[in-house]
């Protein structure tokens, strides 16, 4: 039970050390380190990376959500076509969806033009892709559980009360 909590804590802050985790959960440090190794080996933990707000840098980034309608293949269904799409480094995520379309693909590039070209030249021509609808991201308010838009960032207003 407590070991499962390791995942939740790491999902929130990937920089927590086994020592810190063991103290917080009241578990043995060695056991925690072993569990993390196990999760990494079994592919439960797929990696650790920083959440970067590119809007605050000089680097240009554009991102879009692309709705794809595709015709499923005999035997392999959607898997084959999803496999082809996710091989492109421009593609950040691929989800199979219920509802009005089949695959939701997020793509990032340097400019909107780059992203548009990628859809037009790479995604749309794939065999089995029936249609694409590209929605550009205008602002990221929240991503990966973290608030990005500075207007909504948390301000600690506490500390004005003198007898709490």
């Amino acid at each position: 039970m407590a070991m499962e909590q390791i995942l939740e804590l790491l999902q929130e802050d990937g920089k927590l050390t086994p020592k810190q985790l063991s103290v917080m959960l009241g578990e043995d440090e060695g056991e925690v380190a072993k569990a993390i190794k196990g999760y990494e080996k079994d592919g439960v933990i797929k990696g650790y990376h920083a959440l970067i707000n590119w809007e605050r840098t000089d680097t240009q980034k554009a991102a879009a959500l692309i709705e794809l309608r595709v015709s499923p293949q005999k035997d392999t269904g959607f898997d084959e076509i999803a496999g082809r799409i996710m091989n492109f480094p421009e593609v950040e995520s691929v989800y199979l969806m219920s509802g009005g379309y089949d695959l939701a693909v997020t793509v990032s590039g340097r400019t909107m033009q780059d992203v548009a070209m990628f859809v037009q030249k790479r995604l749309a021509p794939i065999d089995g892709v029936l249609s694409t609808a590209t929605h550009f991201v205008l602002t990221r308010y929240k991503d990966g559980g973290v608030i990005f838009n500075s207007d909504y960032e948390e301000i600690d207003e506490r500390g004005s009360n003198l007898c709490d």
Partner: protein
Amino acid sequence: MIDYDKLVNPIIKKIKPSGIRRFFDIANEMEDVISLSVGEPDFYTPWHIREAGIESLEKGRTRYTPNRGFAVLREEVSKFLARHYAVEYDPMSEVLITVGGSEAIDLCVRSLITPGDEVLIPEPSFVCYVPITEMAGGVPVTIETGPENGFRLTAKSLEEKITPRTKLLIMPYPNNPTGAVMEREELLEIAKVVEKHNLLVLSDEIYAALTYTKEGHICFSSLPGMKGRTIVVNGFSKAHSMTGWRLGYAAGPREIISLMVKLHQFAIMSAPTTSQYAAIEALKNGDGDMEHMRSQYDMRRRLIVDGLNEIGLKCFEPKGAFYVFPSVKSTGLTSADFCERLIYEKHVAVVPGDAFGPSGEGFVRISYCYSVKHITEALERIKEFILELI
């Protein structure tokens, strides 16, 4: 010239301002201050609770409520107390909704205390009990607690302070600033003394939901024979992260609650309506949030206790609230000097223990209602500070 000294109430004029103020003033003038000083949750009020408040406003529910608070809220309070602490209160006659736990404390003391009555107050504790007693004309009698007993009240030290004028015992557990909680055997001993000397008890249980023991919080009125002698004070600020909504409650014998209602109806009329709507939602659907926040605090508690002990600031394990109360005696500094140098040299704000009574000298109150990242950074700075002292 008007000589106000002759016109104002001398009892109130004599009350000293809180000792915490000076540190806030210093902290406010500095940049890059990491504070571990506040006494309120960092969690926002859960969204479904805020939404219930908003919805009540949209519907125009902006009028007074009954003096005692909405009947449905009192019913939910009664169910909550039964569900979590196994105590039964009649929502119609034994529950009063107040403006925070603080108002309930004030009403209770004023309803019971006549000039010259003695009120027993374990110390260190929250800063309001002594002035509220004095304002009622009562005599505050403090009972020192210390680290040798984990800052818990013992029956022996209680009995030593009882005189024929003793009327009321205040039980501030889980304790601010020490984080101490009482154990069952000790409570049973205290109850015997209360019975023997015919005392009443004001049990301030505002931190009840933040108890980290296996058994969980023990409500004082659940002890044998204590229901008729106890006024339980609790509220929404700490359990549901609702400090700014200013809502609490008292539960106790109808004979005492009815007196508190009289004071409340003339001074306050009724607790804020919007807050009462939000609180109904909190009690109906908020147990999960409460448990989530408790487990988050619990993890931070372990982290900070471990960190402080490693640094060499000895601290006993607090089992409740969201404070640790380490000793700074090993540094050779007084509480005030420690806090002042820590904020000037490392920009970390903590509260000197003597702000909560003279027996808090030699300790500091450190709050862990902050993120793990914030706590880790603060511990690093405290460590540097200690290393440079040696």
